[in-house]
């Protein structure tokens, strides 16, 4: 029995279905009414990409592509941390400025 062909069909099928799921998550990232929706969608796209790179590393027979997926995992984690902290800081700054403005208008 020729298992090489069977493995290829299985792995290529998995990669195709995962790429369709990534496309569906992109729609959620564009539609999502709040910012947290978009960050959740991007996080999930990152995890699906890690799975796809790992599967491709076995398909092409190149062992070093797995290192790329490890680094991608770290970068996507870092991106989520930075995005949430920045947005929280910006939101609090806007709120404090509005509170100051209302205080000044209240005094006048």
């Amino acid at each position, binding site marked *: *029995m020729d*298992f090489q062909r*069977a*493995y290829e069909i*299985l*792995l290529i099928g*998995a990669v195709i*279905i*995962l790429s369709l*799921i990534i496309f*569906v*998550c992109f729609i*959620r990232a564009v539609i999502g009414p*709040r*910012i*947290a*929706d978009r*960050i*959740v*969608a991007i*996080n*999930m796209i990152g*995890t*699906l990409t*890690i*799975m796809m790179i*790992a*599967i491709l*590393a*076995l398909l092409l027979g190149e*062992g070093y592509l*797995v*290192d790329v*997926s*490890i680094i991608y*995992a*770290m970068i996507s*984690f870092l991106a*989520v*941390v930075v995005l*949430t*902290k920045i*947005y*929280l800081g910006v*939101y609090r700054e806007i709120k404090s400025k509005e509170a100051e403005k209302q205080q000044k208008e209240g005094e006048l």
Partner: protein
Amino acid sequence: MEWIRFLLAAFFILIGVAAALIAAFGMFRFKFVLNRMHAAAVCDTCAILFVMIGLIIISGFNFTSLKFLLILFFLWIASPVSSHLISNMAVATNEHIEEECLVVPPKSEER
């Protein structure tokens, strides 16, 4: 022997892809952010677990399998932290949080 390996690997990879499909379905089904985040994070973790186990079975007793395990452990540690930070931000910047979920004030405020 080859049959067993192929069938086991196919079983695990297909279950992993099915879990990812359930995650994508859940993201469109729920109405609020916190529910969607829960569906995405939990099903995503399960999907990557099964896919990595399938890939380890295909690859055999190798250094590449160790790298797959390393990816898995790093994602298991990093993904809950990401979910916690996202939900923190989603609750702190939402003024109408009472519509979405039950808000219980901390006990120190009641005294």
